[in-house]
C-alpha cells in the first residue's frame, strides 16, 4: 500500500515548516491557542491547493501568504469561536534561564506593541529570512517603502525597550 506523492509532499511540508509558521502566527496574533489554529488552518488550505505549488523553494513564502490571509479573515469575522481550542497551552519557556526569560519577555512584549505595519515586515525579515525585495512582493509595497518600515520598526522597538527599562542604552 503506497502513499500518494501528494500526501508525501504535504507530510514533508508540514514537518519542515510547522514551527516557522506557528511562530509567525504567534507574532501576528499574540495568542498561542489562536496561533495553533491559524497554523493548522493554513496547512489545510495548503493541502487543498497543493497543486498550485511548483517549486519547494517557494513553499515557505507561499505558506506565509496563506497564513497572512487566514489571519486577516479571522479578524474580519467579528466573533471568533474559541470554545474548543482551550485545551493546549504547551509552552516550555521554563527551559530558559531567568535572565533570558526576563530579557526575552521584554522584547516579546515590545514586539506585540508594535503596530502591524511595522511588525509584519520585521517578522518576514527576522523570522522568515526574506530579503527586502521579497518582503516588498509579499506585502505589495515598494522596496524603498519596506526599507523605511524596517528601519522604523527597529527604532520603535528600541524605543519601547528603552522606555521599559528606564536606564538602558538603546
Amino acid at each position, binding site marked *: 500500500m503506497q502513499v500518494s506523492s501528494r500526501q508525501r509532499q504535504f507530510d514533508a511540508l*508540514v514537518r519542515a515548516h510547522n514551527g516557522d509558521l506557528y511562530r509567525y502566527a504567534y507574532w501576528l496574533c499574540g495568542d498561542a*491557542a489562536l496561533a495553533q489554529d491559524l497554523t493548522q488552518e493554513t496547512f489545510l488550505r495548503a493541502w487543498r491547493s497543493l497543486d498550485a505549488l511548483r517549486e519547494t523553494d517557494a513553499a515557505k513564502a507561499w505558506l506565509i501568504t496563506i497564513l497572512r490571509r487566514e489571519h486577516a479573515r479571522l479578524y474580519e469575522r467579528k466573533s471568533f469561536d474559541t470554545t474548543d481550542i482551550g485545551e493546549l497551552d504547551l509552552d516550555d519557556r521554563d527551559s530558559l534561564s531567568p535572565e533570558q526569560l526576563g530579557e526575552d519577555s521584554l522584547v516579546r512584549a515590545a514586539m506585540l506593541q508594535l503596530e502591524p505595519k511595522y511588525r509584519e515586515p520585521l517578522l518576514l525579515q527576522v523570522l522568515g529570512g526574506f530579503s527586502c525585495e521579497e518582503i516588498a512582493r509579499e506585502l505589495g509595497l515598494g522596496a524603498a517603502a519596506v526599507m523605511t518600515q524596517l528601519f522604523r520598526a527597529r527604532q520603535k522597538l528600541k524605543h519601547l525597550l528603552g522606555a521599559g527599562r528606564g536606564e538602558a542604552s538603546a
Partner: protein
Amino acid sequence: MNCLDYRRQLGADPRRETPEMQEHRRGCAGCAAHQARSLGFELALKRSLQVAVPDGLAERILLAQATGERGTRTRRRRRWGWLAAAAVLVAALGVGLQQLQLFAPLARQLVVHLQHEPEALLTHVPLPVAEIERPFAQRGVVLAAPLPAGISYAQPCPVGTMGSVHMVMPEPEGPVTVFFLPTHRERRGDYVDQGMHVRAVPMGTGTLALVAADTRHFDALEAGWRYSLEGTAATAAGAP
C-alpha cells in the same frame, strides 16, 4: 556614503552590508560601534521571537488533514488509513503526557500559566472596556454589572483543560492576576504555591481565582468581582 546613510541602511537590514557600507564603517569608529550594537540587538531579537512550538503540532495538523480527507474522499480512505491511525497514536501519546499537567491542582496550574505568560504583567495601562468584554463574550459569560476598573490585560486563555479569562489588575503594591473560569467549579480556598498566593472562590457560573505576591487586595477584589459577575451587593463577600 555618510553616517546617516550608513545607519539607515543598516537599520533596514542589519545582516546585509554592501561594499560601500563596509568601506564607510572601516573609516568611521562611530558607525563601527553602531554596527556592533545593532548586531547584538538583532541577535536578541531573533532569540526572543523563537517562542516554543507546541509539542505534537505537526502530528495534529496531519491528523486534521487525514480525518478531513476521510470525510470527502471515502474511496481513497484505505490508502492512507494507516496514517490516520499513526497520527491518532501520536496524538494520544501527547495527550497522556499533558495530562500530568492538566490535572494538577488548580493553584499550581494558575501559577504555572502565569509564569508562562510573563508579558501579561508588563503593562499598567488600563485596556478599553470593549477589549475586556470580548474574551468574556468569547467564553459565553454574561456580565451582571460593569467590570472593575483598571484591568490592563485580558485574554481568553486555556488553563489545563479549562477555558478562562486571564486578566491583570495592576495594584500599587504589585499586579494581581485574575482568572475567571466560567465552566469550572472549585471549592473556596486559599493556597500558596511557589511563593504566590492564590484564592479560589465559586462565583457566577464558575470560579474566580486571584493570584498575587500577597493577599492584601483579595477581599476587596473578590467583592468587586462578585458584583460584576453576579450583580449582588458588594458588601458581604462570601456570605450566602
